[in-house]
């Protein structure tokens, strides 16, 4: 049976099975891990290798130049660079979460590389003390590092994304510690990193603000390592004991006596269930119960802990040591009669056209769903493609006999496996297990793929999983630009547009700004042309110096805020005259500039108007300023400060005169100046500050009210006030002071040019019926007469006048006015009847 061979490869550690499938034959040649410093990124990440400078160099065997090389997990060469940094020996190197390689040298400088061996500036310094004391050792975790100096001081960078070195509490050590381990900040109470330091016969727990002695009596610790969840600690003591304790040292979980007291070269957790110890040629897996498992290696290896196992890298192969998943065990365990195993067997029979297939199915009918589920799960955990296929076929076979089973489970796992198989291919070299894939998340995986320039695969995966492809295309476009220095702009543009079109709503502006940063301004200009969103396009156009296009685009967009943005930019950049010329050609920009300057910068606005020959606008500005001067409390009334005001107005007047079309304005300004002078004189003579800033009509009224008829007359003649207006003004003014005699006298001066209506109105408004009656009969229009009578409540007279006017509509309206008065309304009725009768005859 096929299943026997599968289980034959497993090892049993107490009750649990472990397996160690080979992931890759390493593609590289002539790499000896023992002679190199090696940094392997978890989650199937890349491998960085550099010659260990503490080891002797073999003459002729390798180049004298020291090179940093980066490979993928299958040993495929990705990039290399010559290492020639000053600062002493390379102390440690590791990958951060975003796959940046960080290398710490003795003087405390941290160099960062991306996966392409490009140095990422700026370098980070661990600080002055590190520089002076020199770094001896360091421990990395996810995104941080702790290092120790020759003077036994501890320094830490908690997060490389925001590199701020800090010093931890002084552990007061006399000799260099035996070993160190780190509890990640996310697992500590304080939220800050805690460092475990093995000294003498105990362990110190060092924090930023204190130290604490723990693990008394454990004896000198040679090596220790913290589990992935930060809860357990594996220790190797001087007398060859392996201890697993909780990180607060409150209890010992288990203890194992090794045969040798020689500390292992490497110590690592395999998942949460077992600990691996590696000596020269032996790998020992120790679990809490039972005998450990031994593996023999005749070449050096590196252990790479993962969340669900350990990857083992040797010179020639990469393996993955993991606990066999329960579903797999249930299917392949020798002699297993679990439903899943029977289902798997049934498929085998079915393929061989044996009727036993049906027999098997009948046996497990009731537990078919769980059997299917187990096959699906096992397929997910499988690295071997043909075995994945068989398991999935078994699942699918079983599913056809299940009525209620979540069918998308199978689809989903197929999707996931396709992605996993694609990235596991040795060209890509990311050997993720399904569990690691879930930890990593698809979007981060896509991010890693584009970082390693596997854009096509990234695009296919995001398309396949229905994710937004914008990230991929955007990154591709930027990379393409960087890499295509020799391709001419037009050709490159075509290539780029071809791909950018794939993704609706992609930001052309972002690509363009990348092109600009790469010194391809022209390409940037061509790209930004395709950006539909003006609020992205315009700022970019400005940054690449295309102000005129920016102004045009901003105006077209109708977004005045963008126009302002461009406006201020150009204003700052260009000399005034050139600026004026630019905005004069664009009405919207010009008008907005004027609005802004009207609010805050009058002088500059005047310069603008002068430069464009809009003298009348300068004049309006000056005139406006004259009012502001008047409002200024410093320019108190009656003081000689009227001088400057008048000067401003006169200046405005002369500017109006210079332009042909503004005769009216010029005349008005002239009159205004004259009026101010005259009002000023009046204030002096009457000693009353009530004239300035009133209108001509008001000035006349005030004079009459004050009884100063000569002054009123003077104003009238100065400004050629028409007879009509003069009559209205004088009548109203006299009525205001209720000088009825003067009013009557005025009415008799001569026949008023506009009739007696002003007199009637003034009297009625002042509620002087008697006075009004003097003038009503003199009204020439009977309709007016009728209404005036009506207004003072004389219904009969009103009716008579209205009937004279032969106006039926008027009669009706008057009747309404007298609605309450029945006697009056009957008068109207009779009159109207008569009128309509007349009209008919």
């Amino acid at each position, binding site marked *: 049976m096929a299943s026997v061979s599968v289980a034959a490869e497993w090892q049993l550690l107490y009750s649990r099975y472990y397996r160690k499938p080979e992931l890759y034959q390493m593609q590289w040649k002539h790499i000896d891990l023992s002679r190199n410093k090696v940094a392997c990124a978890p989650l199937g990440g890349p491998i960085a290798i550099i010659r260990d400078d503490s080891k002797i160099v073999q003459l002729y065997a390798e180049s004298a130049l020291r090179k940093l090389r980066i490979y993928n997990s299958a040993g495929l060469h990705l990039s290399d660079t010559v290492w020639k940094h000053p600062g002493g020996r390379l102390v440690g190197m590791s990958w951060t979460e975003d796959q940046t390689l960080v290398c710490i040298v003795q003087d405390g400088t941290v160099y960062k590389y991306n996966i392409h061996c490009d140095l990422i500036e700026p370098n980070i310094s661990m600080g002055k003390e590190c520089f002076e004391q020199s770094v001896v050792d360091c421990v990395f975790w996810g995104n941080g590092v702790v290092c120790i100096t020759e003077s036994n001081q501890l320094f830490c960078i908690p997060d490389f994304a925001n590199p701020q070195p800090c010093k931890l509490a002084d552990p007061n050590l006399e000799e260099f510690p035996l070993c160190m381990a780190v509890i990640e900040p996310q697992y500590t109470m304080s939220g800050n990193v805690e460092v475990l330091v093995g000294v003498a016969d105990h362990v110190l727990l060092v924090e930023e603000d204190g130290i604490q002695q723990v693990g008394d009596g454990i004896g000198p610790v040679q090596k220790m390592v913290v589990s992935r969840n930060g809860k357990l600690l594996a220790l190797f003591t001087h007398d060859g004991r392996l201890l697993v304790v909780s990180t607060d040292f409150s209890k010992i979980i288990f203890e194992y006596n090794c045969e040798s007291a020689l500390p292992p070269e490497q110590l690592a957790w395999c998942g949460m269930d077992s600990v691996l110890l590696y000596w020269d040629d032996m790998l020992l897996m120790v679990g809490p119960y039972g005998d450990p498992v031994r593996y023999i290696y005749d070449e050096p290896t590196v252990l790479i802990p993962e969340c669900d196992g350990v990857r083992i890298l040797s010179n020639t192969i990469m393996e993955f040591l993991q606990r066999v998943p329960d579903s797999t065990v249930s299917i392949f365990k020798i002699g297993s009669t679990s439903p899943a195993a029977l289902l798997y067997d049934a498929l085998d029979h079915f393929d061989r056209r044996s009727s036993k297939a049906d027999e098997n199915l009948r046996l497990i009918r009731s537990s078919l769903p769980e059997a299917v589920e187990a096959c699906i799960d096992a397929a997910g955990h499988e690295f071997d493609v043909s075995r994945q296929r068989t398991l999935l076929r078994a699942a699918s076979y079983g599913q056809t006999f299940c009525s209620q089973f979540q069918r998308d489970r199978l689809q989903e796992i197929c999707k996931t496996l396709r992605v996993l198989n694609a990235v596991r291919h040795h060209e890509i070299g990311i050997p993720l297990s399904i569990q690691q894939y879930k930890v990593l998340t698809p979007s981060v995986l896509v991010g890693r793929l584009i970082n390693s320039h596997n854009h096509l695969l990234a695009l296919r995966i995001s398309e396949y999983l229905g994710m937004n492809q914008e990230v991929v295309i955007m990154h591709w476009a930027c990379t393409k630009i960087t890499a295509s220095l020799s391709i001419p702009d037009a050709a490159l543009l075509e290539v780029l547009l071809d791909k950018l079109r794939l993704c609706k709503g992609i930001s052309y502006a972002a690509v363009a700004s990348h092109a600009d940063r790469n010194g391809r301004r022209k390409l940037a200009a061509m790209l930004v042309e395709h950006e539909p969103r*003006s609020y992205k396009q315009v700022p970019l156009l400005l940054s690449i110096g295309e102000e005129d296009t920016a102004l045009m685009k901003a105006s077209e967009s*109708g977004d*005045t805020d963008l126009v*302002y943005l461009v406006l201020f930019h150009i204003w700052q950049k260009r000399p005034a005259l050139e600026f004026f010329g630019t905005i004069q050609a664009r009405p919207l920009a010009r*008008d907005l500039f004027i*609005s802004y300057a009207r609010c805050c910068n009058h002088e500059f606005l005047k310069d603008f108007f002068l430069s464009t020959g809009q003298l009348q606008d300068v004049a*309006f500005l000056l005139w406006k300023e004259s009012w502001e001067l008047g409002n200024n409390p410093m320019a108190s009334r009656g003081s000689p400060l009227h001088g400057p005001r008048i000067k401003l107005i006169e200046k405005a007047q002369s500017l109006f005169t210079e332009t042909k079309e503004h005769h009216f304005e010029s005349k008005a300004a002239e009159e205004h100046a004259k009026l101010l002078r005259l009002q000023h004189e009046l204030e002096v003579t009457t000693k009353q500050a009530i004239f300035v800033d009133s209108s*001509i009509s008001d000035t006349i009224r005030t004079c009459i009210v004050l009884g100063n008829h000569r002054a009123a007359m003077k104003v009238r003649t100065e400004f050629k006030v028409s007879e009509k*207006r003069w009559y209205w003004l004088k009548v109203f003014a006299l009525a205001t002071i209720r000088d009825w005699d003067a009013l009557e006298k005025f009415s008799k001066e001569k026949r008023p040019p506009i009739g007696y209506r002003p007199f009637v109105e003034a009297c009625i408004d002042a509620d002087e019926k008697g006075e009004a009656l003097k003038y009503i009969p003199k009204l020439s229009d009977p309709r007016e007469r009728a209404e005036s009578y009506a207004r003072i409540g004389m219904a009969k007279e009103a009716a008579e006048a209205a009937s004279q006017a032969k106006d039926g509509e008027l009669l009706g309206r008057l009747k309404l006015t007298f609605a309450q008065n029945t006697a009056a309304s009957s008068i109207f009725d009779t009159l109207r009847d008569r009128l309509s009768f007349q009209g008919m005859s």
Partner: protein
Amino acid sequence: MAQLPYLDNAPVNLTSLRDQSQKELITILKNIRGKKCLVIDQKLGGSLSLIIQSSLLKEHGVELRHLAPEPIQTDCTKVIYLLRAQLDLMKFISSHIQSDIAKGIQREYYLYFVPRRSVACEKILEEEKVHHLLVVGEYPLYMVPMDEDVLSFELDLAYRECQVDGDTSALWHIAKAIHKLEFSFGVIPNVRAKGRASVRVADILSSMQAEEAVNSADMGVPEINTLILLDREVDMVTPMCSQLTYEGLVDEFLHVNNGSVELDASIMGVQQEGKKIKVPLNSSDKLFKEIRDLNFEVVVQVLRQKATSMKQDYREMTTTTQTVSELKDFVKKLNSLPEMTRHINLAQHLSTFTSKPSFLGRLDMEHTIVEAQSYDICFEYIEEMIHKQEPLVNVLRLLILFSVTNTGLPKKHFDYLRRELLHSYGFEHMATLNNLEKAGLLKKQESKSNWLTIKRALQLVVDDIDTANPNDIAYVFSGYAPLSIRLVQQAIRSGWRPIEEILKTLPGPHSEIKRGGFSSSPSFDALPGVPASADKVADGRRSLVLVVFIGGVTFAEISALRFLSAQEGMAYDLIVGTTKIVSGHTLAETFIEKSG
């Protein structure tokens, strides 16, 4: 405090729109912890009162202040300015901060722009060297539901800014607001625009859709079927005439502000000397909803009828024996009593204005001008108004009406009237005249007027109007049918094509666009001129037309639109969007330069 307008009967979900705005404001306030002083500018305060109750603000630890030149007196260490992005408001902030600095007061300052940040405003703050002291954010309030069928963009100065200053910020704002609506209610498939600003808004709207598309796929059928955009510039005649509907008259005489009117308490029959009370005017008041759009003449009759019938009921109640259910009906009727008294008081107060001879004379004159037959009489009337120094705004209204219907005044009269105006009201109004001239509202005659043609073609003057049972929109002005609404009527019925000749004689271009790819109900494609029944949306609701007035709309025009949508054979609900609800008064006021 004043209640928020009742929106549950709105043809689209305006409540969600308002809730959204409310939530956004609360989020801003919540994010600034502790007690805080919220400083808002006066106008914005009015708009906010339609969005959120002031009690709700207090719940979030807010001390409310209005923006004023004087430094802010408060114990709060956190000051939040919530201001419209207007240049002239910035100097207040800088003077406040500088005064605090001088006094050694330390405060945290936040500035939230409505509706969005503005480069120009921030530039001023930078030049005043206070920008770095402010945390700047934005509160995207682009529109405010005024009533169940009215949205306001709250842009008081839009008309003046566009026409006089050439500042078209408002147009972007309007397009953005409509685009926001589309995010809630789907892409509006038909857009018809008339006027320079309207066509521009339609353009900006299209490019916004291109930049940031409303995903029509997951929207389903768009709720709004047609958008009609109309410039105020196209019809400046209507707002200059005195409105004669109930709501319009209230606005003309008492000035409706954000859906309420402020009155002396004595008018409303409350005996409290000198105290002002606020009367809310919106459709939550059932009686008001019934009478707001009627001609005022009719309103008086309706109120009288109602009062009489109630009196009769009361009499029956006291004399005859009643069943319990009859009693119940009676009590139900009694509940409407406060509304009745309110409107009777209000109507009585209004009639003191409407019965004045001066008002009647003015109405006569407006009609004479609109008739455009007796130039000299109109000219002399206006001349006399100036000589009598009647309130400037009243003069300007008639003058604009006169100039617009005549396409300007002959040079001699133009200069003469301007001179008389300056002499009577002061030379500071040179700037006012200049503004009006720039806006084309008071200008020199350069071509022959085509008002008569327009008037005839669109039947703007309707002689026999039965105001009680109107059969035409002309009832809102007792015989004049508003030009703007005639255009809307055409646009809804048959699109622009049949009246293209007339449109050309009105200011500005026009456009008609179809947008969006709607594979759904084919009835939308056959919109113009099809029988009404075909326009109904599948689920039986009537389809919806959004009419946007750029530069403002009057209550009378809204009434006319409501009248239209209530007509038989009209398959549309109408909803009005406007930069602001205006009257001739408020519109003319924006042109007056207050430099003196």
